[in-house]
């Protein structure tokens, strides 16, 4: 008993130490700075109380716009990423020789860094789409990323393309853990493919949905590099998501205190949303 306690602390201490140094302490420092007018250069921050928070909530229209935009984006991309991911997982768990190859191919986009992906897709949207649209006379393919809605869908496409492979891996693991006997029994009872999917597969992969929804939701909210490189908030800052807005407040407008206040609000929002989501999806999980 005693030695197991010793070993427990031996293993936990280093990581706990690192966690406190790089996460907990900076977080509290950040919360402190959100009550100051720090400009990020010299350490002469003055205490300004809650005025940063008041400023954000009352006057900052741009922040509210990015809040709404981020919310919309998160909603749509959570749906598309998980649907595509689950669909791909169903596809590659069927008996086929190509399974392993397909899995690697679908997973591949996830291995490329977000910044590079953003630039690659920027080229696809603004150049490739445009020339295809021009040649075939499809006007909706022209001028991508130059309007708010194309910027929005551009981001959704990019993120779905990148993340659904990752979600696929999670769903594959869950799908493979479903015993074949259950499916066979249902088949013998006369359930068709859709009924089997609805009544057997989906309830049994519910734990994976919890994880998948959590990951996509928090990733979509915190999205930064893809946003920066694909649209950089343009046109006219209408596709600027929360992280980018915070970054610009800090590094373009030199208002670190205000940016910290936004970051704290952001942190609380993301925490509330994801925890609620986890609570509700956990309730749906069934034990085998």
């Amino acid at each position, binding site marked *: 008993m005693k030695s197991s306690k010793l070993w427990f602390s031996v293993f936990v201490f280093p990581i706990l130490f690192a966690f406190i140094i790089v996460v907990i302490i900076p977080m509290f420092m950040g919360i402190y700075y959100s009550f100051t007018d720090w400009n990020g*250069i*010299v350490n002469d921050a003055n205490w300004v109380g809650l005025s940063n928070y008041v400023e954000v909530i009352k006057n900052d229209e741009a922040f509210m716009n990015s809040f709404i935009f981020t919310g919309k984006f998160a909603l749509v991309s959570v749906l598309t990423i998980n649907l595509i991911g689950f669909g791909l997982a169903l596809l590659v768990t069927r008996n086929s020789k190509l399974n392993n190859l397909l899995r690697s191919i679908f997973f591949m986009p996830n291995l490329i860094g977000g910044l590079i992906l953003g630039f690659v897709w920027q080229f696809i949207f603004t150049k490739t789409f445009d020339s295809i649209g021009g040649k075939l006379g499809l006007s909706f393919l022209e*001028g991508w*990323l130059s309007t708010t809605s194309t910027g929005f869908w551009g981001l959704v496409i990019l993120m779905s393309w990148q993340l659904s492979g990752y979600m696929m891996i999670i769903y594959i693991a869950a799908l493979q853990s479903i015993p074949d006997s259950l499916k066979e029994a249902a088949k013998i009872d006369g359930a068709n493919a859709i009924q089997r999917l609805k009544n057997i597969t989906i309830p049994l992969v519910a734990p994976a949905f919890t994880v998948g929804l959590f990951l996509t939701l928090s990733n979509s909210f915190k999205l930064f590099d893809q946003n920066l490189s694909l649209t950089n908030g343009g046109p*006219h800052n209408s596709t600027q998501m929360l992280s980018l807005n915070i970054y610009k407040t800090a590094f*373009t407008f030199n208002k670190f205190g205000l940016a910290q206040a936004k970051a704290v609000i952001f942190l609380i929002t993301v925490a509330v949303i994801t925890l609620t989501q986890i609570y509700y999806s956990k309730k749906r999980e069934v034990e085998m």
Partner: protein
Amino acid sequence: MKSSKKFLAVGILILFLFATALAACTTETSKDKVEDKTKAVEDSKDSETSKDTAIEVDIFQFKVEIAKELEAAAREYEKTHPNVKINIQTVGGGDDYGAALRAKFQSGNEPDIYNVGGPQDVKDWMKKLEDLSDQPWVDLALDGILSGVTVEDKIYALPFNIEGYGFVYNKAIFKDAGIDASKIVDFASLESAVKELDKKIKSGELKDKYPLLEAVFEYAAKETWVTGLHTSNSALSQEFTSSLEAFSADKVEFKYGDALKEIIDLQVNYSSNSDSKAKLNAVDYATQVDEGIAIERVAIVQQGNWIYGGVSKIDENVAKNLDILPMPIKGAKEDSIPVGVPMYWAVNKSSNDADKKAAKDFLNWLYTSDTGKDYVVNKFFFIPPLKGYDGLEPKDSLGKAVKRYANEGKTMPWVFMGYPTGWGQEVLGVEIQKYLAGEVTWEEVISNCTAKWTEMR
């Protein structure tokens, strides 16, 4: 199923072994390195005791284009000053440099020489700026060029160079279209020239010689510095006489707001996206320059002498044929181009005295000694900000053009350094994008930007 799990276990085991082995390797090598380093330090200590103590000057600068050449200049300087070692670090881009510099200072690893961009930066960094008023180059500075970094008669930074921008045009296309560029001296003559050229492009007259030519202008509205800083400067520099005046102004009037609109509309209406203006919001620098003027797809772009290097890499003949037309503001200066200093060198006040002395001496050497001057003009391709560079003329077509305007006195100042932080790009540039997208009228652009200026001051 079972076998795949076994595979996984074995795979993880192998990976783990690999990782530990690698980790072991790296620790060994790093140990070696440390030993080498201490040895090196000891060696150098031995050799240095004979001279003075070693002085290290850390430079943190933003101009990527000169990174290599600056390194060479530093080595040259070290030859004559054996006790000084110069370390150069380069981080490019406007925003990125500012952020990186802050991070650098916050980390406690403060550089001795760094860059500041004008009155706002000088104010922000005041506690870290060494007074440079007693430096020999101060008396050599061109008229008015130090105004942006002068506070209470003290001078805090040395200008990098002079840059100028305007309507960069392709002389060959103008010649083949039969347009005499020397006659373009005001807005009316520019407009008529543009219209004539547009007619000739549309009628296909120039098709044989310039198969890619499709429009007169290309306007990079995605780059808010092109619209919000550079275009707007041509009008606002008529309202404020210097960046300092803009910096201390509580409000902006847009006295020449209509003329500004005309100069934007001219570029928009004769661009390749004139029929769907919103598309201009996706046009970036590369589309405007590399895939625009450099391949003779368009004849004029609003850019500056800094594009020369990029264009000449794509097509040297085009680069040689470039020249600059004035940026006419109706009812004000119509024959001039905006010329200014993009960035300044500053010395860190908190460095120790020996480092500061060496840092000042290096900057002085770079801009006033013969070797240094050669680097500045012929290797960095700078247009020098100081007097006393006789016989060293810029060699590229655009540098020559800027110099020509400067010599003739046909210049207007860069005042955008004095805009409130972020106002030019994030407010005005963004409003211009909205204007192009048809979401707001020009009157709303003006009223929104005026209100924001007052709010941000």
